[in-house]
């Protein structure tokens, strides 16, 4: 390839690029009323959602305690997190266990129950939706589990098990490190039928009924085939939305362990990444360190979403 040709290539590319920019610019000018509409939201969104993410990436590389000016310390926070902070590693392990168990199971349960509920007659469906959705919006109703799982014989579960002779002494559900995680997982699963679940219920109702009749003519013979070949492909957008919601709730576990297992919990058995972040951010005011934790959490969540949307591409084909 001679140089003249290369130059003309580059030149053509540049003109194309500049044309594109000037076209975009003139379009943007024509549509300026759109930006006017978007502006109030965009400014607030930038200040309270984008800027925090950017600042937490920045503060992650500094020592910052709000009173003094942030001091740049390189990757020291991250190194400390991984090499020195044993509690953080416990927190990561716990969060990982909670996320891996409650995320997928909560997601699948939401879908399966939404599917079953969809088979019910209309009046019964409305009641079922309320019963399943209520735990996730019931404020701090999960505190009732501290009575159900109470460690003495007055605890509901203990007295039940004692009555039936399954155990002979009350178990310390919320203070014995062996039982804390299973109890937390049960409570979190109880609350997992949230916005994603609602989206699934609505998605099932929105599917065109004539598709099922067409499927029947084409040889779909039971509800499982119907689910895989007709329902799942038409619900892909809802499935992705539900996945985003599941990731959010699976990684942001914080209030439930704090309320049930105490803060801090026995041997840090119920410490999660977010409670760790709270501990450093709002109890010790080590904002730099807390920001480093937040940054890691962002990255993991974004990665998870990418993986799931890639996996959903393959569903139902």
């Amino acid at each position, binding site marked *: 390839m001679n140089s003249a040709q290369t130059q003309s290539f580059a030149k053509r590319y540049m003109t194309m690029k500049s044309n594109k920019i000037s076209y*975009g610019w003139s379009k*943007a000018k024509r549509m300026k009323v*759109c930006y006017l*509409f*978007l502006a*109030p*939201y965009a400014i607030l*969104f930038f*200040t*309270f*959602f*984008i*800027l*925090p993410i950017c*600042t*937490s990436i920045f*503060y992650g590389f500094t020592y910052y305690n*709000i009173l003094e000016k942030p001091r740049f310390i390189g990757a020291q926070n991250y190194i400390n997190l991984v090499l020195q902070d044993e509690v953080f590693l416990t927190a990561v392990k716990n969060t990982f266990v909670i996320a891996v168990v409650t995320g997928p199971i909560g997601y699948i349960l939401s879908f399966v129950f939404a599917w*079953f509920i969809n088979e*019910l007659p209309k009046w019964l469906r*409305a009641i*079922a*939706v309320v*019963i399943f959705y*209520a*735990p996730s*919006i*019931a*404020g*701090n*109703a999960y505190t*009732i589990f501290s009575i*159900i799982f109470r460690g003495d014989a007055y605890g*509901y579960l203990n*007295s*039940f098990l004692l009555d039936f002779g399954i155990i002979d002494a009350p178990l310390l559900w919320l203070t014995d490190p062996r039982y804390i995680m299973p109890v937390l997982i049960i409570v979190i699963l109880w609350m997992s039928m949230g*916005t994603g679940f*609602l989206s699934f219920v609505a998605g099932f109702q929105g599917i065109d009924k004539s598709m*099922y*009749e067409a*499927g*029947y003519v084409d040889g*779909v013979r039971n*509800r499982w085939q119907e689910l895989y070949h007709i329902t799942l492909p038409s*619900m892909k*957008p809802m499935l*992705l*939305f539900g996945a*985003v919601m599941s990731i*959010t709730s699976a990684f*942001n576990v914080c209030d439930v362990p704090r309320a049930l297992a105490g803060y801090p919990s026995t041997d840090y058995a119920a410490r999660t990444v*977010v409670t760790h972040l*709270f501990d450093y*951010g*709002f109890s010790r005011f080590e*904002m730099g360190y807390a920001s480093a934790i*937040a940054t890691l959490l*962002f990255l993991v*969540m974004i990665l998870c*979403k990418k993986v799931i949307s890639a996996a959903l591409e393959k569903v139902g084909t």
Partner: protein
Amino acid sequence: MSEFNIIKSKGTLDFNKKKIKGIMVSEEAKTYFQDAKGNVVCEFTYGELKELKNVRHGGMSSTISVVLKDETAFSATLIDGLKVYNNIDKFWLNKPVMAYSRAEELRRLAELRGEKVQKVKKHLIKRRHPNRSIGGDIGIYILLACVAFLMAFPLIFAIGSALKPLDELFRFPPTVLPEHPTLDNFSDLIVTMGQSWVPFSRYLTNTVFITFFGTFGHLIVASMAAFVLAKYDFPGGRFFFNVVVTALMFSGYVTGIPNYVIMSKLNMIDTYWALLLPAFAAPIGLFMMKQFMEGLPTALIEAAHIDGAGEFRIFWNIVMPNVKPAWLTVIIFSVQSLWNNSAATVIYSEAKKTLVYALQQIQAGGIARTGQAAAVTVVVMAVPILIFILSQSQILETMASSGIKD
């Protein structure tokens, strides 16, 4: 037939792959479509009908698709509902008539003509959906009943505890439902509240204030952004929306730390702005609104453009009335999050604290306040659940468009 009303409505006709703006007129014997100059574009009598579908988009717009017996097909998107011209009093009824199904339409026409209305008997047993076995149905019913019991049990237990008198709360073995239900715990709660340093009414006012203004501002700000993102294609719009979708994942906890730093830089710590402004920009509201607005027919907006309406009038007079189900959903999500917001991290003054915070303080009062704590749980959970029960159908209508398209 002077009693018979002519039904007229403005909109766009989709016929032979051409789009024509004009008026659709339904008379007693026939329906026809007039273009802007008054020429009749197409016309059919009810005898020629093979199929007629009427889909309402919410609010006042609807799409009517017609197939005639000679296989001609066309559809019309009507924007201002079906206006009724009252021949007796010679004026247009302002109230739009809801679109209805063919059967209802025939019934209405018959009613208008003064004929006796034939009632269609409903089949008692519906035709079973194909591909369903009775055994499977029974299995699903039993499973759902069991799981529903497990889901509801803690909530029933909470309500039961709140109604128990003190001796039953500490009885062994513990019971689920109270033997002698009493409202003592609730009246004790009011007494405790009355003795607190900051009057109870102050906490309530704070919460109502925050919830009301936070929700109102969020609705306006998010709807405006959602409108342009859904209905206009402008540089940067799609990118912005993708960022918002990603931000759905960043709930209050993760952004809590940097947000605290930003708020302290903006001098907003210990003011309501620290709660209100982030609530205005909640991504879930914009997301729901935008997805729902995409379902509005574009013809609706084009027609208004041709009539010379500016963007703000289109937004306020045409788009907003048509997305009422989405309003409710956005309001409910916002109320839920603001109502449950104890704001412990950004508000320090006792006089500015929210109701939920005060209630949680009582709840943390130890063994002596077990009964009151249960009452608090019931009070806090009752509000969001009641709102959801009352608005379930609208929320589900909005959630149907909640999917994320890649």
